[in-house]
């Protein structure tokens, strides 16, 4: 079996780490070998963050190179654009339509590219989703990560029940209800 490569990108503080943990735990529940590469430390402070989740029969390297990602799960538009070179031919980008200005844009030293969704669409298969609104609908704006996991779940071979079970064991009990709602909203999302 070929290794499946999922790259999760976003801005420090958006909850990409929890997303990669949920994904990793769902994958081992299915009996695959898995590696998850996380980012800690300074880059978490509002910088670009990248985590990799790789699973299959046997996984060696924890990192994903250019042209190797089956799915790019992006929490933010600009970070999706930045990750484009990592997508393999025929891969899919799932992108949250939230835009967070990086400091060079805030200070006026650079411009935030316009129409990123259509630019991505010209080169790859893209699913765009307003996960922040759905997270608020679920009851907590911080549940963006689980809305996105819900949407991504449909693009994997891992069954629905496995995801629900994983959420129950990975998410703190106090936030479980909100996160289950957030997952459903992502999972049922139709473009």
């Amino acid at each position, binding site marked *: 079996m070929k290794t499946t490569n999922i790259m999760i990108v976003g*801005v*420090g503080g958006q909850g990409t780490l929890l997303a990669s*943990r949920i994904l*990793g*735990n769902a994958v*081992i529940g299915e009996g695959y*070998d*898995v*590696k*998850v*590469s*996380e*980012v*800690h*430390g*300074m*880059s*978490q*402070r*509002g*910088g*670009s963050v990248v985590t990799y989740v790789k699973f299959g029969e046997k*996984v*060696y*390297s*924890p*990192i994903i*190179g*250019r*042209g*190797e990602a089956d799915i790019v799960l992006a929490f933010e538009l*600009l*970070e999706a*654009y*930045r990750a*484009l*070179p*990592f*997508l*393999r*031919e025929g891969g899919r980008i799932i992108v949250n339509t939230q835009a*967070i*200005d*990086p*400091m*060079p*844009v*805030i*200070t*006026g*030293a*650079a*411009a*935030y*590219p316009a129409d990123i969704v259509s*630019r991505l669409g010209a*080169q*790859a298969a893209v699913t765009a989703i307003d996960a*922040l609104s759905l997270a608020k609908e679920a009851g907590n*704006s911080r549940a963006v990560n689980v809305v996105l996991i819900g949407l991504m779940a449909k693009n994997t071979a891992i069954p629905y029940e496995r995801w629900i079970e994983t959420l129950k064991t990975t998410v703190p009990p106090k936030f479980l209800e909100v996160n289950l709602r957030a997952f459903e909203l992502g999972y049922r999302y139709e473009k």
Partner: protein
Amino acid sequence: MAKLLIGNAAVAQGAYEAGVRVVSSYPGTPSTEITESIVQYPEVYVEWAPNEKVACEVAVGASMAGARSMTCCKHVGLNVMADPLFTASYIGVNGGMVICVADDPGMHSSQNEQDSRHYAKAAKIAMLEPSDSAECLAFTKAAFALSERFDVPFVIRLSTRVSHSQSLVETGAREAVELKPYEKNVAKNVMMPAMAIKRHVVVEERAKKLAEYAESTELNRVEDNGSRIGVITSGISYMYAREALGDAVNYLKLGMAYPMPEQKIRDFAARCDRVFVIEELDPFIEEHCRALGVEVTGKSAFTMLGEYTPAMIAKAVLGLEGAPSAEAEEPIPVRPPVMCPGCPHRGTFYVLKKLGLTVSGDIGCYTLGAAQPLASVDSTICMGASVSAALGMAKARGPEFNRKLVSVIGDSTFIHSGITGLIDIVYNKGANTVIILDNSITGMTGHQDNPTTGRTIRGEATKQVDLELLCRAVGVEHVVVADPFDVKAFEQVVREEVNRDEPSVIIAQRPCALLKYVKYSGRCVVTDRCKKCRMCMKLGCPAISVKEGAVSINPDLCNGCGLCVNVCPFGAIEKEAEA
């Protein structure tokens, strides 16, 4: 069932299973989670020490007293630990002792890219290097037993990708390891010349035994795929090579980074037409091979800089090109790390920038005070250097320069090694102004308690170092506590203290915005009184931006700290209650 653990948590599990009793560390990315993971085992005494030197000495003492002990740090922390380390090598161990050091190739969160393997050679101790979480657990467990067998501290060398990658591990039960008897042993434990001269003989004999062990141990493993190309590698580079090259080459995987085998390498190389050495950072294995007269290709085909990748290895060894990939049509703005919305340091740097001061910086979140638009930090060297380097600057350039000079240092970093610099200032008649950024926590590494927080690593209440009293006690007569968000008053305090021709300390007190108990009410909003003067833009708050000429505050990012309200000269920013 197998568990998914980051390498650091697997190291902790390995130490737990090996019966470790005492763990003392100072936090440092990417090593921090090893010690944090120990907290889950109630049988183990665990602590955050004020710095790595102290942590290492606690572990040495615990080992001397008969317990299995461990200390963990990042690569630059090993520099701080070097003094006890080199002599601990002479003393050896009673209970097994393990030192974990995590290097940071690519400098994800560090100020340099040093290669810690040199320390094993220099201190004449042994070093193991795991490649994934399962090996982190197994090697750590093995290291305790080997430490006792060879009477030497063992180092576990990690790197960011091993420390912070999760992979599957099988966990086991804790071994029942008895505390060894403590017996006074002056010849072994008192390192004064007469004894140390004799211990050095033991150290050199031990080095030979360790070298023999390196020949026979299964930690150093040959994978013969019948190829004429050989690869000698270790750590994460093994995983990259395995993915990139598969069964197309033979591997000599060195689980023991120091000492390295001789005969095993000669035999391996003799079966190959060409041998590549694949290792990040310095040519440590490569130089060892060269010294043996074994011809290898190493850094000439790779790089001394940053991290390796499987694609880089596939190209260098097999000449394979990487997968095709798409490219963005335009340059993409970089997204450097920034201070969080509500960060207390923002107020401090806003004032320092406004006053045009030279700022001697230090290691922590506040190193980000060097970035635009606050851009006020002039230098960052190492933990504690903000204080002592500023004394050097003042002594070099005189009192006038000193009146435009401050040091900035976090509460934890000040305790780590800033206090000694402050004593130097007082003792040697300096007149520096030191600003302690007291945010009530060790921030950058992810909220660890420290001697100024009043809580231990297990969250228990304890004595709290009083920074104000501490500074007064070493002889600083002018110590002021100020709130960096009260910008006008804070500016006045800084002006006064830098102009003083005596040492002074300003304790800039406000807790980290990410602490759970820090809750600001409401959100900040821009009203129609805004004159577009952009004064608020000088704060570099990620929540504030200019959209089509108008200043706006993103309600999803704003945490309502109100600093922008305080700096707006027209009172045009208001706090709005949460909807």
